[in-house]
């Protein structure tokens, strides 16, 4: 889950890393107040979860509070890459002597966090790594042993930084490393980390991402920051259809029937599990089918959950039929899913045989499941019909 810049800077500040003065504002009036508090030249930055703010005009400079309010009013109305800003960040402008970069990310193959540091801050670290590899320091660190200052020092010194800069940067990077682990971040980046004329350092911009799976154990921080539980912070926000899918999934704790993503086709999909859904979605598209949604069922969901998901998909405008397909199931019961999707059709006043283009779920309790499907005349297939063939039949049953 990605944080806005103003949230990221607050997280950094709470970790004991100095940040530039300023604050978040949702209106032009609030922006004026923030500028007055700062009491000097300010920068007004659009708070959007996308890059390219500067180019789009989402970053403006002001010398006086009135000017800050004018800029804020404009930026608050400015859409950037399809995103409307949540507000603006009004920050005091700092006299920067030099810009540095400090970040921590996961190295999935080494299975450890890796600290990155550069004395060429202010630009993308990928770009620096490509053009000036000797200006990027790296250091993996343990997730079992506590992080120690020397590890930060080694990384900083590896790009040739010495003197007071080295000793002043060391605690900042150490705090960043600890914050990364303690707050379950997947990315913790300060860029630029600015050295001021007096030699001190402040975080001017920060970018933090927290692992979704860990949100539960940082409930207090998230509440403090005002992050709503329903905010997915994905590349785009959830649609009402997708939120309804999550509600179906949340109705009980048995199995999964959710992870719904909306598309605009006419073939509803009730598919699973994780890998099966990916395989089937590809296959439906390869055969010219137009999926109305992506979703996942698995982990032995209840009849109510399977029914709820099928109903949701069946009621989506434009959906002509649904295809119920999974890779061979081990613990999900075929008969339970069969009962759930038939119940959904019947309760909505449809003939299951008309609305279910194909049912292809082989595996546990398949004899029982197939018997139910036969009774309702629903076309079904066992494991001798491949996922690909099942997807083809589904696509052909609902011409685009």
């Amino acid at each position, binding site marked *: 889950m990605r944080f806005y810049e103003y949230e990221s800077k607050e997280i950094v500040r709470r970790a004991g890393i100095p940040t530039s003065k300023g604050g978040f504002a949702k209106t032009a009036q609030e922006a004026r107040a923030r500028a007055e508090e700062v009491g000097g030249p300010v920068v007004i930055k659009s708070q959007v979860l996308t890059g390219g703010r500067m180019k789009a005009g989402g970053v403006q400079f002001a010398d006086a509070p009135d000017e800050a309010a004018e800029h804020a009013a404009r930026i608050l109305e400015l859409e950037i890459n399809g995103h409307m800003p949540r507000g603006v960040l009004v920050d005091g402008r700092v006299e920067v002597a030099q810009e540095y970069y400090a970040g921590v990310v*996961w190295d*999935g*193959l080494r*299975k*450890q*966090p890796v600290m990155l540091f550069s004395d060429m801050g202010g630009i993308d670290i990928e770009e620096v790594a490509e053009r000036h590899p000797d200006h990027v320091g790296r250091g993996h660190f*343990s*997730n*079992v042993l506590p992080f120690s200052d020397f590890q930060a020092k080694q990384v900083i010194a590896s790009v040739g930084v010495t003197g007071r800069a080295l000793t002043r940067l060391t605690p900042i990077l150490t705090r960043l490393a600890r914050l990364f*682990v303690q707050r*379950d971040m*997947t990315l913790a980046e300060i860029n630029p980390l600015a050295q001021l004329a007096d030699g001190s350092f402040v975080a001017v911009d920060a970018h933090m991402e927290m*692992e*979704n*799976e*860990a949100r*539960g*154990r940082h409930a207090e921080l998230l509440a403090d920051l005002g992050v709503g539980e329903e905010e997915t912070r*994905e*590349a*785009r926000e959830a649609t009402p259809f997708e939120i309804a899918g999550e509600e179906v999934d949340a109705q009980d704790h048995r199995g999964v029937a959710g*992870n719904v*993503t909306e598309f605009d086709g006419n073939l509803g999909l009730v598919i*699973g*599990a*994780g*890998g*099966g*859904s*990916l*395989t089937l*979605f*590809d*296959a439906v*598209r390869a055969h010219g089918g137009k999926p109305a949604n*992506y979703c*996942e069922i*698995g982990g*032995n969901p209840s009849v109510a959950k399977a029914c709820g998901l099928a109903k949701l998909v069946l009621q989506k405008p434009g959906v002509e039929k649904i295809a119920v397909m*999974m*890779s*061979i*199931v*081990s*613990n999900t019961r075929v008969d339970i899913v069969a009962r759930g999707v038939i119940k959904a059709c019947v309760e909505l006043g449809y003939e299951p045989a008309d609305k279910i283009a194909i049912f292809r779920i082989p*595996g*546990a309790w398949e004899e029982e499941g197939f018997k139910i499907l036969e009774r309702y005349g629903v076309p079904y297939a066992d*494991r*001798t019909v*491949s*996922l*690909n*063939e099942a997807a083809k039949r589904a696509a052909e049953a609902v011409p685009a």
Partner: protein
Amino acid sequence: MSILVDAGTTFIVQGITGREAVNLTRECLDYGVGASIVGGVTPGRKGRDVHGVPVFDTVAQAVEHHGGPIDGSVVTVPPAFTKDAVFEAIAGGVKLVVIVTERIPRADVAAMVEFAAMHDARIIGPNCLGIIVPDVIKMGGIGGPAKDAAKAYSPGPVGVMSRSGGMTTEISSTLTAAGLGQSTAVSIGGDAIIGSTYAELMALFAADGQTEAIVIYTEPGGRMEAQLAQWVAENGDPLPIVAFMAGRFMDEMPGMSFGHAGTIVEGKEDTASEKIARLAAAGIVVAERIEEIPDLVRSKLAERTAA
């Protein structure tokens, strides 16, 4: 032979009194020669039994009752308690930990993997269904109830590794239907960080006398395929590999997560098309459809025999 487990492997089930764990225990006891499940652990439930398996409060008690080191553990406890359970197993001398639990934060997974490495232990998963040696033993929910697992898996020359538990069975079933059995099938887990990657298990398969070819199921997200391609280049390509890549549609939707936790396209190297190119460059055949896999395996095997 097989990799990781065989008929003589002893293991415990941590969280054995949970609903899914009770089923999993039944399945493993019933499958093949019958797994040697020498104990279960659920704190506070000492003295009970699950399908005849004695339940203990701690791993140490299970080890003491067994009277010697225990080879493995299947961990099915909730995500908040998994790290502690895995540390407990490893501290208790267990060398092979299969973590079934999903939705474990990465920091915990990394800590478990690091702790395992310090103790010369191996982790499979998390978010996986475990390991199966057809007709011999299964450790985990892989393949489901014994009679269902018997339909999908059969003994033979193909090693299977998959980031999706369900697709491990789907692919093995397709191989079985085509007359190609499996040496060992491993559900390696769908998370961004896992205990054992394709490349890390390749050395075991390469050393296994029964395994003649490998089939992998893969997805967008992460760099495990690049690591496998590099392993093949560095180790002289000891076994032919056929891969299947799901989630090709995700290339058009960076930043959106589908499927497993590890399946999110964050950079250029994570995409399906980039991975397919990398695998192909290493001589790994990438199947377009699951049903093509048996013929691709056969032709790869024939090529090697001819050479």
